[in-house]
């Protein structure tokens, strides 16, 4: 039984991770096109860093990811707080609508956003991309932060008031420190979501503002280049580290 269980899990994980492993291994393969192994090399990584177009796209991507995740985290945290602190009519349906935007297909969001931007006469580029990324990150932040604060004993806030704290002091000394891990987790989630978004970005960015996922997409249409393997490997490692960090942030203090 134990053996069966273990082999089943092994299969699941092989299924999940073999493609990534292949990618990582090939990023070190000396051969250019072939699927054969021609010895290990780091030259694709070197080539990657020499590729200015890719590097520019990377800088753009990171800029968008950093700014959009910060904006989304700020707005989303305040939103979650509003859901927690205030009882107003329509609170439940509104919260459900947060999930709806989270679940709605990227293609729907991409097309609706581009329509809106065109109607508003906004030029497609950094600003529109930023707005779009904030939009799709926002629900994730709200849900992450709200899940954590809704678990708090509401009497804790009464206790703070009772001891002389005003609204701001309650926020600063009680709510903020208690939600900080979830806020950080929400930010990391937004950052990674923004960094690897393709579909929404495809619709809302302009030709002069290229971002990494789209750049890679256009490159691989002409065949997978080894430096793309190298780039993807780096991105995977980065994601892995983020996931681990998020895990520890959320876990901390929930004991």
């Amino acid at each position: 039984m134990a053996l069966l269980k273990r082999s089943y899990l092994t299969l699941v994980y092989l299924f999940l991770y073999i493609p990534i492993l292949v990618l990582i291994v090939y990023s070190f393969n000396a051969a250019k096109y072939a699927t054969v192994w021609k010895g290990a090399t780091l030259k694709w990584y070197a080539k990657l860093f020499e590729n200015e177009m890719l590097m520019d796209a990377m800088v753009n991507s990171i800029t968008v990811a950093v700014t959009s995740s910060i904006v989304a985290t700020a707005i989303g945290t305040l939103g979650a707080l509003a859901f927690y602190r205030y009882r107003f009519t329509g609170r439940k349906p509104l919260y459900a609508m947060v999930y709806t935007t989270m679940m709605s297909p990227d293609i729907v969001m991409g097309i609706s956003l581009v329509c809106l931007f065109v109607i508003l006469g906004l030029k497609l580029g950094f600003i529109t991309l930023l707005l779009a990324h904030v939009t799709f990150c926002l629900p994730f932040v709200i849900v992450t932060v709200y899940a954590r604060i809704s678990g708090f004993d509401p009497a804790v806030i009464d206790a703070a008031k009772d001891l002389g704290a005003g609204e701001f002091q309650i926020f600063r000394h009680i709510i903020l420190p208690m939600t900080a891990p979830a806020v950080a987790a929400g930010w990391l989630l937004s950052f990674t979501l923004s960094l690897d978004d393709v579909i929404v970005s495809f619709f809302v960015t302009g030709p002069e503002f290229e971002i990494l996922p789209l750049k890679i997409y256009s490159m691989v249409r002409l065949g997978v280049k080894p430096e793309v393997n190298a780039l993807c490997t780096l991105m995977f490692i980065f994601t892995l580290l983020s996931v681990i960090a998020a895990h520890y942030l959320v876990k901390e203090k929930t004991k």
Partner: protein
Amino acid sequence: MGKQIVSFKGVTKGFDNQTVVDNISLDIYGGEFLTLLGPSGCGKTTMLRMIAGLESCDEGQVIINGVVSNDIPAAERDVNTVFQSYALFPHMTVLQNIAFGLSLKGRPEAEILEKVEEALAMVKLAGFGERRIQRLSGGQQQRVAIARAIVNEPLILLLDEPLSALDHKLRKEMRLELRQLHRKLGITFIFVTHDQEEALTMSDRIVVMNNGKIEQTGEPKEIYEEPANLFVADFIGESNFFDGRVTGTDGHWMDILVEDVAMTVRNRRGFFVNQDIRVLLRPEDMVIQRASDDCDQPHLKGRVEELIYKGNTVDLVIRLNSGKRIATTEFFNEDAEEIFYAQNEAVCISWIQGWEVVLPNE
């Protein structure tokens, strides 16, 4: 007794069309240990929260220390609360929890530390300052909650069922400690509980509440021995009730008929002839005699159904000939074996004249 420190004047409070506190007027005096006692949902917590400023009242006034306080926010009231769930700040140490109130007031660090140490000693937690809250037992968390409130030297300390989460033994210890703390601090304690034993043993005065109204206010002895109505009689302590009717009265005494037996009891409330009454007797006030001993006074007849040995008392369950069951408690005295009865033994039941409580049967 000091002067009034809290006064409710016709206070009414409702939630979603349901009246939770119904036109209550109550004076609480400086330095007393007052208990709000009542069944779950009767509005005790709501009363406390209105004193704390965590709930506003719909009508009436809450006067604290001579000032109408309806519109004074919780943060500015000289009142601190020990919450039922303790509500400690989970991200802070014991010391930071207790220091919270004082540091908000901007007191100098040295003074804060000194006061925190003092408060910790007061609740017997000296040396626990650096502990994390999660690493304390329930009883210790409760003490931290008390320390966090008293360190601010409030005029009034509110305690919302602070002992309900503790085990039986700890609860008894904490009752004593809270009494001692009350004596040491000399401030007003307003304590909420639905445990009548807790209320009787700890309080200077008890306010019995039901359905958002006050049923009776008085000292524990008064509440226990002179319950104002059937609700209080039933809620506090164990009681036997007998339905009866007044057959004659001279104003001080009256003849009544209970269980078809004629008895004479005191008439304290101007009962009149033919009025339906209910006689209330505590188990320890019943007098039991063996039927074989030729009972003299008027008495009810019954048989011993159950004998429960409790160490310092023997409790009997007696079934009257009418089928009604009653409970009695006999204390051990010099000739101890006298109180052991055989199962099914025939007994006469009476009580010491004047110890009964007679209430109108509405």
